[in-house]
């Protein structure tokens, strides 16, 4: 891995600061946080990150993410 990629960066997840390795993808972040991916939508800097691209989308330093869990009960 590129040294620059391995350096930790700070991002924000649902308002909380979090340090992750540089070059972390959305999919890797969800795995790191043990998030059940079938039930969530992810916003990256105010825009919806398409589910089918989660493996490719790199999270830039300082990014603001929202992980929104949807539930079906009512």
């Amino acid at each position: 891995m590129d040294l620059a990629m391995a350096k930790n960066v700070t991002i924000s997840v649902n308002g909380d600061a979090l340090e992750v390795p540089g070059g972390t993808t959305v999919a890797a972040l969800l795995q790191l946080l043990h998030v059940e991916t079938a039930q969530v939508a992810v916003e990256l800097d105010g825009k919806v990150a398409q589910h089918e691209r989660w493996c490719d989308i790199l999270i830039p330093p300082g990014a603001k993410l929202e992980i929104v869990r949807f539930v079906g009960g009512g």
Partner: protein
Amino acid sequence: MNERDRDRYSRQIRFSGIGLSGQQRLLDARVAIAGCGALGSFQAAALLRAGVRRLVLVDRDYVELNNLQRQWLYDEEDAECARPKAEAAARHLLRIDDQSKAEPVVADLDAGNIGEILDGVHLILDGTDNFETRYLINDFAVQRGIPWIYGGAVGSYGITMPIVPGSTCCFACLYPQPPAGVQPTCETAGVVNVLTSSIASFQVSVALQLLCECQSESCVTTIDLWGGGMRQRPQPPARADCKVCGRRRFSRLEGRGRVPISLCGRNAVQIHSLRGPVDLLLLKKQLLPLGEVRANELALRFQVPPYEMTIFHDGRAIVKGTTDAGLARSLYARYVGS
């Protein structure tokens, strides 16, 4: 507005956000409540008390004793009589306000009836218990330009978000496909009774603002009442490539995406769900506290008297003890999730 109504709604009329003109808009509005369970029954009472007398109440289920913990509008007599929720709700609403014009509709909303049942409403409140109906409502609302307000609640966690066509993102922008596999439901994961009323209160609050034509920022609101707190943030913009609001393809209104159902034997219904694979061991663990369950890697059998459900690894299910497709869908939504 007559003198009696001026008195009845005086505290709202004095509130600057509503005023006399807003109150008149509420009295003139016609609103649909899709699903009259924990969310919907609360919404119905709150909206009626606020002056929305023309309510269309849609629900396919009957009141049961285990509903009374969180479904504020119903009582033991409704449960003993197994009254249809839509009709029970309309009866109770008349006791709150004898001028209530609530229209009960005992039906399972589907592509074939949604146009007729929800025709002419100004707003739709989500009180459903499954994703399939929500995607159908989203198609219908976006196609006709009618606002709807999503709400969901399980355990101690809930979420709500308004969808205002032409102004906000739609449900499919944020969440293009329903989740696959076993989902937590109020039957399997339980639910805190004030969670549903909290989410329903937020939904009604947004509904009142939309009906009164008040400008406010559209937010996604999430709540975890068991220590997780509350979070609100602006909705993301609509996606230009969204199939529903971007490309205006309303596949669910055309019946696509609907899980097909067929009669199977003399007293059974087969649900041909394609949403699998279902983790049967996880499902067994969730259902064990609720009744007799037997499972292997291929199938799970669950007794929920007087019915018996057999769920297969691919998500398909057979519900024995009924020929009612709506009831079979309801049992599936409750115990497997949809």
